[in-house]
């Protein structure tokens, strides 16, 4: 078994109201910053998975992302592998 580390990114879908993003965008003026637009706030979840190979590990993470970490009605998500990769300590 090998341990794989993944990151799952979850973002509000296109067209879904994102009051957090709007609030952040509204605050930019207070920083004196111009030219920043279309702020969207999502979340990133990092986790380690023990599996026989990368494909199996990715399958587990994708299931977790689709069933729990994101609500597919309102959010889109994607999975990336992040290091380090190795045998469990």
């Amino acid at each position, binding site marked *: 078994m090998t341990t794989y580390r993944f990151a799952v990114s979850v973002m509000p879908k296109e067209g*879904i*109201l*994102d*009051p*957090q993003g*709007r*609030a952040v965008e509204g605050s930019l003026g207070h920083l004196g910053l111009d030219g920043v637009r279309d702020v969207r706030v999502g979340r990133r979840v990092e986790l380690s998975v023990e599996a026989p190979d990368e494909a199996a590990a990715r399958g587990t993470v994708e299931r977790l992302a689709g069933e*729990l*970490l994101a*609500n597919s*009605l*309102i959010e889109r998500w994607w999975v990336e592998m992040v290091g380090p990769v190795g045998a469990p300590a």
Partner: protein
Amino acid sequence: MVFPGSNCDRDALQAARLAGMDAQLLWHEDPDLRGSDLVILPGGFAYGDYLRAGALARFSPVMGAVHAHAERGGLVLGICNGFQVLTEAGLVPGALLRNASSRFEHRWVRLSVERRDTPFTQAVPAGVTLRLPIAHGEGCYFLPGPQLDELEARGGVLFRYAGPEGNPNGSARDVAGVINERGNVCGLMPHPERASEALLGSEDGMLLFRSLLESAAAVAAR
């Protein structure tokens, strides 16, 4: 039903008893529903609303029994956070987003009752609107347009924000509460249990509890 972080469970219990129900608190790790005819998922912040409101409560051990109860035609009412749990569990359609105002909204609203032929609304007199309080940060009802059309076409919208109080959270088509296709699972954002005695400012919420008592009794008598 009490989840870790529920905070309207005792209010719901009190309102249910006031309506004449033989009501008790269930814990989210209970193996079964102790023969209940009606299950109420109360308001609050189950699991701290971590991840998304209702997302973690959906995986509580008792939810298997709640699904089975709903599949048998048993009555389920989700109030506020309980509505969020029902959407996450797929027991009613839709999702509840952060309020369009970005603020936690707590105030009185007025609800139109779209149907009175359901176990949740049968005791509501014709033409009557309900005055109930809301208290939520994530109550903006969302369903993609075509699915919302379908929901409307089958009579799935049970309550709408109405009157001068208006739509407090930006919900699509003023939806405040929905009912599943079979007509035995309902979720709404306003709190009927907080409008259960004149002392609280309104008794309108009791119309829902009385409806449920009547329909549960009718089912039991069959």
